[in-house]
């Protein structure tokens, strides 16, 4: 086929395709996915999502199970946003060889629901003593913790108020809360951050009212040896809302995860569909063209493959062989190609009888040449529709395998996020932002290819066209 012919047929095809609106919508969604895929490095808030998705320490500064940020638009009570305070006021005092470094953070709190934690991060070397003081807008001061820091080069010391200051917060509470309410909670079961940001009054434990205003958090660090150093003191405030899609119970940013899943879904879907449909087309054409006992034999083989229940076999193979994503795609191709064989074969039987095939054969063309040069190019356009319609199935199969926990653990796919959501109790605890986005992405991607596939089907099989 010459290039000019090809261009002509493509533009003709495009003219047809343009008339089917749903097909254009599908194409639009597909293009949108491609854009997201291309700009993933720019868009993803966490650049190492692809490699460190299962590395808990990478996500440590995020809040746990935080709502998506846009929940604040719909909620009357505003949830605290996550933020990192980076530039403390530093003052240094020397007492002989001892140095007292004081880092003062100002946090402007204007929300209704308190952040989930306060985390102080310190880098440095050597040993130090640290006192953490928390001053509220109403003048109350809480001593949060005093701890010994042992710092090593390159490491980061983390002091979490939520973990380390329960006792102090409970004592602070004792000055205001009624004894009855105090008795309802144990010292170890309270949430320090919720108390620290609440108005000091009765019921602040049960039904806290937010105390808005400027808070001061002061870290006084005592260094005893001259060679000890302190650098990069940061205060992380993990809020109650985070990122476009919130975080999961393992503190991972779901937007990054969902974004990282796009390329795998596209790869799995496209590769599986293209390879298996091509195999099916070639198989069907060869079977039709050869005819006779070869045809019968090939049809028997086809019947055997056609009788395999796909998902059970995939599950067992994944459970036994623990395949990587490439092997999974290969396995899917091996069992997936049968879908298009029947129609292709019947088309091949028709084309085989055409006069131009006879003419080519009279000219002495080999079977190989006739099949691949003259018959398959005629059938390929018809297989585009089934390719598009195969893609969602392949994506769902991979997701199902991942849901069982048999997916490739080195990558991030939507199915694996859903697996974590399911086993992490997202359904029971109502963490909808963990369950809905990945599944919705699967559904939308499936939908876009369904739109494209059905549009192609409509063009290629005009009989179904509406009168």
């Amino acid at each position, binding site marked *: 086929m010459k290039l000019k012919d090809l261009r002509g047929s493509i533009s003709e095809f495009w003219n047809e395709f343009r008339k089917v609106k*749903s097909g254009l919508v*599908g194409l639009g969604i597909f293009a949108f996915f491609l854009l997201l895929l291309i700009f993933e490095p720019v868009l993803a808030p966490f650049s190492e999502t692809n490699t460190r998705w299962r590395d808990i320490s990478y996500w440590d500064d995020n809040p746990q199970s935080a709502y998506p940020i846009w929940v604040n638009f719909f909620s009357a009570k505003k949830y605290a946003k996550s933020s990192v305070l980076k530039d403390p006021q530093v003052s240094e005092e020397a007492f002989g060889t001892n140095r007292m470094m004081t880092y003062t953070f100002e946090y402007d709190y204007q929300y209704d629901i308190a952040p989930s934690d306060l985390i102080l991060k310190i880098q440095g070397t050597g040993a130090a003593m640290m006192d953490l003081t928390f001053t509220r807008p109403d003048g109350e001061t809480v001593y949060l913790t005093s701890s010994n820091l042992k710092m090593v080069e390159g490491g980061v010391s983390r002091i979490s108020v939520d973990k380390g200051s329960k006792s102090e917060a409970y004592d602070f509470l004792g000055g205001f809360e009624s004894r009855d309410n105090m008795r309802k909670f144990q010292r170890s079961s309270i949430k320090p951050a919720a108390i620290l940001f609440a108005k000091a009054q009765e019921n602040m434990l049960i039904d806290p009212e937010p105390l808005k205003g400027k808070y001061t958090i002061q870290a006084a660090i005592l260094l005893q040896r001259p060679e000890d150093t302190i650098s990069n003191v940061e205060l992380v405030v993990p809020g109650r809302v985070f990122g476009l899609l919130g975080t999961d119970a393992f503190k991972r940013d779901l937007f990054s995860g969902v974004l990282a899943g796009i390329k795998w879904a596209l790869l799995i879907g496209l590769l599986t569909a293209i390879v298996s449909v091509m195999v099916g087309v070639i198989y069907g054409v060869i079977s039709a063209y050869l005819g006779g006992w070869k045809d019968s034999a090939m049809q028997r083989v086809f*019947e*055997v493959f*056609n*009788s*395999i*229940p*796909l*998902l*059970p*076999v995939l*599950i*067992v*193979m994944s*459970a*036994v062989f623990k395949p990587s994503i490439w092997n999974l795609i290969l396995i899917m191709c091996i069992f997936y190609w049968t879908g298009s064989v029947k129609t292709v074969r*019947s088309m091949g*039987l028709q084309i085989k009888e055409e006069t131009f095939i006879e003419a080519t054969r009279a000219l002495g063309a080999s079977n190989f040449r006739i099949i691949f040069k003259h018959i398959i190019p005629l059938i390929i356009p018809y297989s585009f529709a089934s390719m598009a*319609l195969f*893609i*969602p*199935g392949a*994506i*769902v*199969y991979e*997701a*199902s395998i991942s*849901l*069982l*926990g*048999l997916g490739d653990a080195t990558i991030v796919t939507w199915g694996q996020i*859903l697996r974590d*959501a*399911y086993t992490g109790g997202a*359904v*029971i605890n*109502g963490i*909808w932002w963990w*369950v*809905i986005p990945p*599944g919705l992405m*699967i*559904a939308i*991607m*499936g*939908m876009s*290819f*369904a*739109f494209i596939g*059905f549009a192609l089907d409509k063009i290629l099989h005009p*009989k*179904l066209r*509406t*009168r």
Partner: protein
Amino acid sequence: MYWKYVIKRVINGIVIYIILIFIFSALFNMQMEQTVRAQIDEVVKGEVMAQSTSGKWTPEQLMNWSKERKVYYTELYNLNKPVFERIVTRAVDTILFRYGKSTIIKSAFGERDVVKIIFETVPRTLLLFGTAAIIDVILGILIGIKKAQKPGKGFDKGTSIATMIVFGMPSWWLGMLMIMFFVYIIKVFPSGGMHSTPPPAGFMYHLDTLWHLTLPVLTLVIIGFWGRAFLIRNIVLSVLQDDYIMSARARGIPERKVLFGHALRTAAPPIVTMALLSLLVSVSGGILFESIFSWPGMGNLYWISVEQSDIPVLMGDLSFSTGLYICGLVILDLIYGFLDPRIKVGGKA
């Protein structure tokens, strides 16, 4: 004539089943033998323990005896034969439903026989997917015909778009959402399982099952019936373009009669096949769906056996569901041949 066709098709199905079981035994031979060896070790250890507590034998005798027993069991399970022979025996065993013993999973009566464990789950799976399929097909026919009546109009377009929206949606994901909404937000349905604990007695028992069945069936129907309606619409639409429909309309036969009497009768064979085929596909493709609802069927068994890595149950479940799938395909062809007499005469396309 029809019987000849039936016999031919059934034999064909059986042959395919046997071939597939051979392929499976060859593929998973290693894994199966590992579990059998582990089981033998366990049994021999138990026997040696029992002997050593009796205190009659010296340690040396015990050692020899344990070796003997191991050899005995190895021979019993044919593990000393060449690989090919082992594969063949395994395949024959599988075909005769001798799936062996499970490693962890037990049936409701505490048996470790894989066949019993599987047979327990089959009716439950059929109940769930069968109910859903019946509702699906009825809804699909009603809506599909409505769609075909006025193709390209608002209703047809709207439902077609809905078809495409649910096309790539995993049923288990919708199940999760349904559970989240109907179980934990508005507490209408139970979270899963087939019965309340403890199950009520008498007539209430069946009502209880129905109550547990509602949510999964609802989910399956929401996912499924669009696609069926779309297929039925296409089939009916192509029939409606035939000349005899036009002539029927021209004769003044009421539209209802044209649709249900003329068009639907001609369209019946492909509709039945497509409905059954999509039922088969949805059963084999929706097996994970059961575990989301903790429905104790075959699909849930896959989940459990993967989680517990109970290989014999996994293999038994696979062989059995393959058998069911092939059965379904054969029945499909038989019904098709029954409804459309042209099929069985020619035999070839």
